[in-house]
């Protein structure tokens, strides 16, 4: 492995990392929102919407992200919806992540004992206040490990977007291997950059879990 080549590749991978980060950040934030909406709709048993959410979750969890991505990138333009590569990549990540986040949050909501809701209600809180101040904080504390596992999973899943020629980390590596045959350098940089992104996320997640456990949330 040559250090010169590694140094030469550094800016290219940094570029790719930026793309990966951008798609991950947008995808994860929107996944959380989609997940929140889906799990509320199920928690409050909203008719019709609840069945739609259920259908979406099953569809999303039981198809590979690559298929979802191809469907959005190659399929949707046929019905007049064509988006940029980047938007397609984010949309696919959200389509996948929304269901995973919904399931994680739903398990959190369901783990909060009904007596918590009842005592809040008997103090005169309305539905919104019960959720906002009593159920939601406890549910999120319970769901946190699952949510952070999903965050790591989704960041790793972004590697799939290279399939539509979006220049993320994976794409940069594949490109360099194909052009220069410097396979070991390219793969080494790929691993290093994914670790640089994922390790802090994992560490932050376990720190947050420890803090919350210490505060006695959900206990």
């Amino acid at each position: 492995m040559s250090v010169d080549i590694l140094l030469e590749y550094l800016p290219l991978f940094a570029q790719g990392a930026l793309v990966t980060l951008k798609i991950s950040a947008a995808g994860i934030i929107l996944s959380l929102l989609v997940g929140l909406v889906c799990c509320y709709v199920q928690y409050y048993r909203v008719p019709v919407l609840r069945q739609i959410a259920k259908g979406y979750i099953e569809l999303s969890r039981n198809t590979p992200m690559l298929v979802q991505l191809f469907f959005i990138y190659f399929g949707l333009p046929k019905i007049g919806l064509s988006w940029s590569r980047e938007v397609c990549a984010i949309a696919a990540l959200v389509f996948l992540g929304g269901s995973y986040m919904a399931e994680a949050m739903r398990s959190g909501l369901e783990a909060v004992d009904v007596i918590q809701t009842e005592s809040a209600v008997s103090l005169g809180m309305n539905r919104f206040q019960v959720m906002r101040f009593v159920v939601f904080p406890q549910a999120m504390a319970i769901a946190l490990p699952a949510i952070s596992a999903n965050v790591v999973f989704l960041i790793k899943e972004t590697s799939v977007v290279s399939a539509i020629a979006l220049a993320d980390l994976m794409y940069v590596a594949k490109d360099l291997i194909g052009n220069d045959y410097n396979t070991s350098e390219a793969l080494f940089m790929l691993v290093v950059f994914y670790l640089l992104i994922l390790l802090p996320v994992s560490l932050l997640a376990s720190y947050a879990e420890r803090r919350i456990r210490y505060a006695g949330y959900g206990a």
Partner: protein
Amino acid sequence: MTDEILLSVKDLVKSYEGTSEVLNGISLDIHKGEVVVVLGPSGCGKSTLLRCMNGLEEYQSGSITLDGEKITKNGANMTALRQRIGMVFQSYELFPHLSIQDNITLAPVQVQKVPKEQAQAEAERLLERVDLLDKRTAYPRQLSGGQKQRVAIVRALAMHPEVMLFDEVTAALDPEMVREVLDVMLTLAEQGMTMVIVTHEMNFARAVADRIVFIDGGVIVEETDPETFFEHPSTERAKQFLKTFTFEKKA
């Protein structure tokens, strides 16, 4: 105690999905300042009655009114009505993610829009009364069962309710912690709080009650002053019930 009726239950009929009537025509008036103790065998519907009184359960017929305003689970104005009725449950139901102080101030601040400092001062005053001022920054899991129940009482009192409902609040406690909770309730009664109490502590019932209501088979079987109830119960069912609390050495 006054003649003014605060909480009125009329011909209440309640069944759960798939059960026969748990309450089958209960009528009960609670006067302002009165302490009513509800007794009855396990499963006779005491908790159900209290839960209906607080609008936590739907009922099939009859009516429950607080100062003439109708209480139903999904009725309009229920959040306002529930603020006037405090409830403490059997299991400790403090909010585990909030400190003791925040447990107490949450509803006054968010629901009644009491300024934060004022709610805190009030929480401290109430905690002092139950001897738990030093626990105000602690979390529920750091408290004993008896301490948690005293906080639960304080949390309900912080809303300045007109009537308090207690559902076997000492049933899950170790014996040595029962007393500290009952003492708080006795003090409340002496201060003139209107209370409906479900309990299995017979000595306490006798000491605190203005009136005993004995429920069995979904109806009120006996309704009288504590002295009469415990010394000269008039029905066979009440006699049987009281017997379960006395022990005799087998020959």
